[in-house]
């Protein structure tokens, strides 16, 4: 059995990761899921959350992903993220501020307002950013 598989993390501003990994854990529309080598062809949408790559044994890399798509095709996994950043680069304080700001904005909107979906998405991203430390999965 193959021990590793190819994984690519792609964002509109560049390729953040391209290499072999043992396991990938991500948060999809239906909840958290893991991908191991020889996974079936599969595609799902991602919600804002943490993407964990197990490079080997005890070596992990994590990214904060602001939603997007995950695809497994012929043993290669590709994550198309709207935005992605390593947790070390997340500005937690600014995120906490924007959670409050977006919550305020959302409270004045109705579900049918044109900007509602975008605001809800922005809120989800801001929440993940603000709580990034609690969400990290890899052992430290």
């Amino acid at each position: 059995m193959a021990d590793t598989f190819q994984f690519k993390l792609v964002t509109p501003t560049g390729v953040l990761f391209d290499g072999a990994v043992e396991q990938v854990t991500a948060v999809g529309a239906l909840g958290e899921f893991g991908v191991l080598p020889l996974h079936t062809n599969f595609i799902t949408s991602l919600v804002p959350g943490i993407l964990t790559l197990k490079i080997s044994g005890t070596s992990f890399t994590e990214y904060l992903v602001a939603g997007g798509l995950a695809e497994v095709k012929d043993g290669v996994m590709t994550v198309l993220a709207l935005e992605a950043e390593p947790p070390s680069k997340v500005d937690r304080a600014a995120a906490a501020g924007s959670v409050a700001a977006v919550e305020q904005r959302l409270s004045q909107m109705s579900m049918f307002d044109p900007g509602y979906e975008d605001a809800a998405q922005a809120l989800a991203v801001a929440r993940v950013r603000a709580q990034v430390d609690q969400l990290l999965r890899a052992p430290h």
Partner: protein
Amino acid sequence: MATLKAIRRRISSVKSTQQITRAMKLVSAARLRRAQEALLNARPYHETLKRVADSLLGSAPEAMAPAENARRVALILVVTSDRALCGGYNANLLRMAEETARRSAAAGLEPKFFAIGRKSLDHFRRTHAALDGDRINNTPRLATVGLARDLAAKVIGDFRTGAIAEAGVVYSAFRSAISQRPTYDKLLPVEAPQPAADGAAAPATDYTIEPSAAELMPVVMRSYVEASIFHALLEGEASEHGARMTAMDSATNNAVEMIARLTLEMNRARQAQITRELMDIVGGAEALRG
């Protein structure tokens, strides 16, 4: 013949213009490099998304059909620059936009423009074209994910509510610093990929789709439209800087030529003046002797 003083003034004016055009050329060259890099970085995202969208389209074609009773309107996003001094860059784009509008009209769709960049906004205001909105003063960078996201939200929103039946974007495809080609890309409705020339359709991937094709399709399409607009903005940005760099390079060369010509003229004028003065002196001496 112009006086010596006038020619000198002219030369110094051309020299300062030359300094400006040379500086602008250098600035554009630096920005072009940055824009090209961004264009290259965005390519994998756009290409992968296109592949995924194409292979999914077969599973849920109805997810992206225009709304029922959609108004027969074609929205045309036009990506131009905010500033001038970039040769024929904007003029070529606007001609392409007008042409696209004529084609839409011929197909029975009412064309409406969305101006990105001050130059297109000014143009459409002048021609009293149907304008649906604008985004100008896109500084310091035109191609930002944020702008692409806003535009995609508008396009998809209008498409879903039936305010438009078609959407596309006119931008300048960057080929090299001296070659940019105005291009029209249709964004919506998304068409199924054309089978290859030999009749063999691209092999569709048999995916397990979660949660379901109908639910996933809007997400894919949204990302796809976003990436396509972002791609158009990036191409436009690189083209603008390329066009400006070329325009400023030839302006600088013209200034060099003009300075050479004026210097020659100035020397002639000076020589003529000296000769005239000498003649006066000789004439005066002759008169005294006589």
